């Protein structure tokens, strides 16, 4: 899954896709209504995003919505080469 990326010196970035994009990329204060809509909650849609990554020898660009139709486990962690 995902599109292969060429590895260059320009570092590829991803980020939220769609409605969440503006709020997440700019540091402007949100009004209460917007904040409520954006909150991650069980029973609500997982915010879509794109991100570059490494997968079995290749660099790829992944979009979460490509995984619709499948059970997906999304795991954040503090950092590579840390201990736990």
């Amino acid at each position, binding site marked *: *899954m*995902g599109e292969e*990326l060429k*590895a260059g010196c320009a*570092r*590829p*970035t*991803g*980020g*939220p896709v769609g409605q*969440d994009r503006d709020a*997440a*990329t700019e540091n402007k204060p949100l009004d209460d209504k917007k904040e409520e809509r*954006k*909150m*991650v*909650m*069980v*029973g*609500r*849609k*997982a*915010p*879509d*995003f794109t*991100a*570059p*990554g*490494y*997968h*079995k020898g290749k*660099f*790829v660009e*992944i979009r*979460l*919505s490509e*995984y*619709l*139709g*499948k*059970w*997906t*486990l*999304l*795991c*954040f*962690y*503090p*950092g*590579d*080469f*840390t201990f*736990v």
Partner: protein
Amino acid sequence: MEILSISIDSMFVHKMWNDHELSKMVSGGIPFPMLSDAGGRVGKVYGVYDEDAGVETRGRFIIDPDGVIQGYEVLTPPVGRNVSETIRQIQAFQLVRETKGAEATPSGWKPGKMTLKPGADLVGKVWEQWKTEMAFD
């Protein structure tokens, strides 16, 4: 079941970590995509980006085939996850989805244990079916 891991490290560092350390723990290397969220923009939306430390906390989200978050857990960095518990939760959510909500999994449920069938007949009668010992392994 698909897995995606994500941290603020670049995809190049992911490659180095896989090639030099993780492939020594997991034969063949990491089988799922290791995503890069430099800047923590995705982590911010998911509420797991720690701005002071500049890293993402240990957040784990179970997302169903409709893209809906069914469960999540977030830990501070020094404590690792319990993979068996994550698998148990996924099995429970899958059972509920397969039965279209006709069955629910009480505390301590794992595959093979009894489920509850919510309905008018069960109101006030859970105590007859579910015993406190069943909360434990």
